[in-house]
């Protein structure tokens, strides 16, 4: 509860602050708080990812971007009414949707009924790996993780092409354009 309050406070800070350096640092703190919340929820693997990716790599990448741009946010010429409206509608739909979810953490939720017990019981026997998260991730759900790896691969290639493409376009117009097509 304390953590969630802190997170809400930081969100307000992020919205109000115009100094982008401060915003990036607040974003990092937000990620660490999120990681703490995940530890409280006993999801240590996810917490570790959140701390390393959200607070670590993302913050560093944001700082390198800041190095390339100005460090103060410029005033937007648009009125905030339409985005506010869209955000309110989305929030309303999400809150309405969360009413239909099964009670949090209850043992007889549908998610605990189907394959989860089998994984928990057979994991050590079938894979010899005590950490069920790892065995589900890499073995039972190996297809999904392969897909995730390919997503990371695609994202990396896409970013590299975008950042490289512009530099090359100065020399030659055509190769960069065709490569941009291939990225899609």
């Amino acid at each position, binding site marked *: 509860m304390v953590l969630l309050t802190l997170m809400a406070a930081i969100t307000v800070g992020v919205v109000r602050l115009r100094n982008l350096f401060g915003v990036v640092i607040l974003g990092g703190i937000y990620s660490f708080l999120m990681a703490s919340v995940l530890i409280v929820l006993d999801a240590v693997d996810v917490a570790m990812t959140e701390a390393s990716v959200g607070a670590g790599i993302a913050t560093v990448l944001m700082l390198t*971007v800041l190095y390339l741009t100005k460090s103060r946010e410029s005033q937007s010429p648009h009125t905030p009414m339409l985005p506010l409206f869209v955000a309110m509608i989305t929030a309303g739909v999400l809150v309405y949707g969360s009413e239909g979810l099964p009670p949090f953490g209850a043992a007889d939720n549908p998610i605990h009924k189907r394959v989860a017990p089998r994984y928990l019981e057979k994991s050590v026997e079938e894979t010899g790996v005590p950490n069920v998260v790892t065995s589900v991730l890499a073995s039972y759900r190996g297809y999904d993780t392969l897909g995730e790896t390919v997503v990371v691969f695609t*994202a990396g290639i896409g970013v590299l092409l975008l950042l490289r493409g512009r530099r090359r376009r100065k020399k030659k117009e055509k190769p960069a354009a065709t490569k941009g097509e291939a990225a899609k």
Partner: protein
Amino acid sequence: MKLDLIFRITTKLILPFILMFALYVQFHGDYGPGGGFQAGVITAAMVILYAIIFGLPAAQKVVPARLAELMIPLGALIYASVGAVAMLLGGEFLNYSVLLSDGPHGQELGILLVEIGVLVTVAGTMTAIFYSFAGRGR
């Protein structure tokens, strides 16, 4: 940057431990929290820390940009080829039980290999993205 003696010494001291921790997260993922993804990010963080303190050229001497870019498809290939090898040995795609004569140990080996694939891709991607961002300012 040349005068930041404390930063430089501390970084030099801490780098091996970061790599050690990344490898621990990688290979201990079977028993504790962690795995290829987290280990890959920590490995990339080590390279990025080195690049921030010692400058981009010094980091690219240790981990050339070409190597980082090569790592991106290499990891995905490692992962997919483990699945393909399992298929060639008569099992289903990504069913590691056929990798060794003993089913569970085959699974363990398969998980280890695909986690290495994830590590290679993630570390390569993060490092390459950082390089291309940091290299733009010049």
